[in-house]
């Protein structure tokens, strides 16, 4: 929906967004990638750059998906997909796994979201106060617990409604937790004065991104 806005603009594809996030993860970090879009980030971290991926269900040190003929049926991630374990990986129980999260031991969590507010509030688990069976999973624990929370999402909904907002209208997942947002249009830091654009998709300009954002944007070092 956004590729036509300026003729030269090339919004990030999901794969490019994943690669863009992966670029910013240094070796040695302990990282939880949320279910959905963020899961793809792992594919863009080269094996030789050792990043330790955590999954809520007690898996630390996840490797890539297994070959179809090498599936270990006891080894799944929080998205219930088959995964592998790297040398150096380990298993633990759920309370220990969330002790890692809640205790601030994860350097980074990357989540998808419905909305992110300029204050860093995140809404990613229910789209109405009257959701008929809202499912929160581990999102609230991750959002409140990780040292850094990054969000990875489309800049707007399919019908063009902004997802970077002044104040979330959907039920919150956590308050003031988001540090950075990666969208198909831009990379933005959440700062005391609001969203600061620190990178733009190729050919994308600030005004186009602002037009698709409800909250006011700033340029870094302005």
């Amino acid at each position, binding site marked *: 929906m956004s590729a036509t806005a300026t003729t030269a603009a090339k919004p990030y594809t999901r794969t490019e967004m994943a690669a863009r996030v992966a670029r910013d993860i240094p070796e040695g970090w302990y990282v939880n990638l949320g279910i959905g879009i963020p899961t793809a980030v792992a594919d863009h971290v080269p094996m030789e750059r050792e990043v330790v991926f955590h999954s809520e269900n007690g898996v630390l040190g996840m490797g890539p998906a297994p070959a179809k003929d090498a599936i*270990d049926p006891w080894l799944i991630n929080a998205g219930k997909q088959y995964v592998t374990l790297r040398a150096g990986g380990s298993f633990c129980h*759920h*309370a220990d796994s969330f002790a890692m999260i809640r205790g601030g031991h994860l350097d980074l969590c990357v989540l998808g979201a419905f909305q992110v507010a300029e204050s860093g509030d995140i809404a990613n688990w229910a789209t109405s106060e009257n959701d*008929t069976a809202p499912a929160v999973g581990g999102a609230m624990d991750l959002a409140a617990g990780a040292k850094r929370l990054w969000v990875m999402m489309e800049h707007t909904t399919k019908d063009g409604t902004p997802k970077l907002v002044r104040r979330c209208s959907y039920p919150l997942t956590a308050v003031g937790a988001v540090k950075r947002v990666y969208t198909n249009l831009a990379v933005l830091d959440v700062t005391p004065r609001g969203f600061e654009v620190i990178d733009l998709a190729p050919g994308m300009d600030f005004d186009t991104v602002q037009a698709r954002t409800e909250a006011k944007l700033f340029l870094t070092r302005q």
Partner: protein
Amino acid sequence: MIDKTVRSMAEAMEGIKDGATVLVGGFGAVGQPNALIDGLIEQGAKDLVIAANNAGVGHVGLARLMELGRVRKIICSFPRSSDPVVFETLYRAGKIELEIVPQGTLAERMHAAGAGIPLFFTATGVGTKMALGKEVRDIDGRQYVGEKSLPGDVALVEAWEADRWGNLTYRESGRNFNPVMAMAAKLTIVQAQHLRDLGAIDPDHVHTPGIFVNRVLHVPYGDPTGF
């Protein structure tokens, strides 16, 4: 001689009462005590409160128990699944209560129950619907929500190995909620893939010590996809 192994499903399920709170292990299909859930269906207890991460898939296991009208309330973090039709139908019809708990808080509430901690504070859920009606307090400049322990009358647990004292190991991500549920319940019932001789499990590698286990049923059912 201490011998916690039982010879039949009927023996394993004996004494589970109507109205019981039953903690059910597993995350996805892995570490889920499928045979014991079927045993509970067969056993007949009703008006149950179930605590589990999910609310059942398709028409088997937990979903079947709910479909039979035996579950009054479910406490879980993620009632959605690939096929949650039974739960969703009951929930929309007002025929089942739902308590949504963040996954880590759910695990810690059971760990706390097992560890004799009736109340603890966590930053998870502060400023969200999860904090409604709960005590919120400022501790050293950050806000936290008070969460109560979640003890069970019964826990249904799936293990990889067990011995007659009830010592357990789990396999890979099959560990998940099982150890905290084993701690949190008055009556912990285990289905184990392998029965080992006493002393065969390395004492440094026991995941759940037998003190938390009451009954062990040998159920060599194969791999989690085989159910």
